């Protein structure tokens, strides 16, 4: 009791420094993040095309979600209707969201399976695996490499002509007669992006799951092996159930990451080729606002708002889990002190 009251007296004189230390963060955050966020909300209700802005209510959302040709009446100036000043959105959000989900699921499932098995092996005390730290370093390496460079490398390797390295090899071996369009083909490019994403992220997920498994009380595994449980039994009966919160957290954070997927879907292509079949939400947003001549701020901003809502729902889960982790951490600390 006396202690807390003492603290209160002290805190009065130093509180000002608390504000001063956190001030730069908040000033910059408000200017460069909060204001742009509100600006995005505002722009989502404005028209598209040249710099003229006109209030169009929820029309951008309607155009994105349902798609309609009626939006044309809201063009920047009537004379530009038929021109290429702006592109109409015809229920685009369904398409780009579909692409995003497909690409995310397609990379997450193989990634989590590989990572779970690897993490279980790496942490199993019965197994004697030499050089674990080297393997971990190699597995994480793809994640550290500039995505633009990885994309360029894979486009070179998988280029769709007979000169592309992989096609060249397959032709030479006689496995195929015509080069496969790994970069331009609809399903081929989707699968390639899933593979590249898996390649980039499985090391990260493995390391995160390993630290999760190592947090499980070792005596469970000891008791199980004394009772004669096999490795597989231990994995399904102990590791998986106890890892559930961490797995869930991994799924949620990966989903949030997946919703933002930009680099690979945007960069894995031949030059200026248009790749609608791998256009994710983030790529769509970027393509629409990033035009010096006639940015479609309206559609872009409306898609951003929809993305924001989805992220906020997922983020709320992650937030809650972080909070719980914090509280558990505190509890454990208290217990340690008692011990």
């Amino acid at each position, binding site marked *: 009791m006396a202690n807390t009251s003492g*603290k209160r007296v002290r*805190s009065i004189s130093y*509180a000002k420094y*608390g504000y*001063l230390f956190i001030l*730069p*963060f908040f000033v*910059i955050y408000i200017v*460069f*993040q909060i204001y*742009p*966020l*509100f*600006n*995005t909300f505002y*722009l989502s209700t404005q028209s598209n095309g040249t710099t003229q802005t006109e209030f169009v209510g929820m029309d951008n959302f309607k155009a994105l979600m349902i798609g309609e040709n009626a939006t044309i009446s809201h063009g920047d100036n009537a004379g530009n209707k038929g021109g290429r000043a702006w592109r109409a959105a015809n229920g685009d959000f369904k398409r780009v969201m579909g692409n995003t989900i497909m690409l995310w699921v397609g990379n997450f499932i193989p990634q989590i399976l*590989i990572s779970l098995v*690897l993490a279980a092996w790496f942490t199993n005390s019965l197994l*004697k695996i030499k050089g674990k730290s080297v*393997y971990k*370093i*190699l597995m*994480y*390496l793809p994640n*550290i*490499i*500039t*995505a*633009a*460079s990885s994309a*360029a*490398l894979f*486009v*070179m390797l998988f280029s769709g002509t007979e*000169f592309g*390295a*992989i096609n060249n090899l397959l032709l*030479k071996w006689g496995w195929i007669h015509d080069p496969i369009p790994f970069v331009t083909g609809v399903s081929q490019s989707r699968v390639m992006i899933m593979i590249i994403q898996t390649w980039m992220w499985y090391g*990260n997920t493995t*390391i995160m799951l390993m*630290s999760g498994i190592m947090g499980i009380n070792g005596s469970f595994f000891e008791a199980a092996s004394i009772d004669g449980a096999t*490795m597989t039994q231990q994995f399904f009966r102990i590791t998986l159930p106890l890892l559930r919160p961490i797995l869930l957290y991994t799924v949620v954070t990966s989903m*949030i*990451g997946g919703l*933002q997927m930009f680099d690979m879907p945007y*960069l894995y292509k031949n*030059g200026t080729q248009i790749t609608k079949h791998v256009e994710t939400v*983030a790529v769509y*947003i970027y393509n629409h606002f*990033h035009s010096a001549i006639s940015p479609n*701020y309206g559609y*872009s901003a409306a898609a951003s708002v929809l993305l*924001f809502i989805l*992220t906020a729902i*997922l*983020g709320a889960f*992650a*937030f809650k889990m972080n909070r719980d982790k914090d509280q558990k*951490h505190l509890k454990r*600390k208290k217990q340690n002190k008692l011990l």
Partner: protein
Amino acid sequence: MSVSMSKEKAKIGSLRAKDIIITAIIVIICVVSILPLYILIVNSTRAGQDITSNGVSLIPGLNLFKNIGTLQDWTSTGKVEYNALTGYVNSGIIALSTTFLTVLFSGMTAYGIVVYDFKLKNAAYTFILAVMMIPVQVTSVGFYQFMAKIGLTDSYIPLILPAIAAPAIVFFMRQSMKSTFPLEIVEAARIDGCGEYRTFFTIAIPMMKPAFAVQAIFAFVSNWNNYYMPSMILISRNKSQMTLPMMVNTILSNDKLADFGAKYAAIMLSIVPVVIVYLIFSKFIVEGVALGGVKE
């Protein structure tokens, strides 16, 4: 007796076999992981016509410097917008200054929240937790339009200054300060007449060096690798301003360049610095990932 012994032996034997099989699988996965990079390095040393006739080889050639020479010719004749040295300098300026700002100000913010008691302390921390997950894509329309309006496109300011506010890094720094930084030291410093800022700069930062180092490495790598922000802001694509990832991207959009050796060399040059940084700090990085949540 002997029966149980042999049983035991068999068990150990099967375990050994398991060790070998599992190690082999892991080695194969690692090889597959680095194979694309190995082929990249090998191809950057091979002559262009060799690559066109035989795309994949495991044996390096002797043409690395010739390929880099070809690349330089392309640069000087204006065929490509790729210039590794300019790219290193530009990406370096952005990555180093963002890293410095991010680590310093995130450290300050975390310190302010951990060390001091003030009315809005919990509100401030809750806010940071809440905004941590907001993806950059959500705000980028508003951000870009705002920058275009005040004439800051084609400038490094919008790429560097926002680094002062990095919620995720504040979060991790707060976690590690909470668990490793004893507040008694602040008390002691006050009694000795040390000012608050001096305490932070001369006592807290040196003590928190490991945490700062991990965050600095991650900040550096992710800013060096960033394609999204620079390509959004540097809209005129000035050769003298472009970052390395942007330059690599221009290599692909040019179909007239026939020499594959030089193209591979260009990609290789773009990943060398980051791979070197990674190999030097790999232990920190892997540990940092284990701490959780460093996801882009």
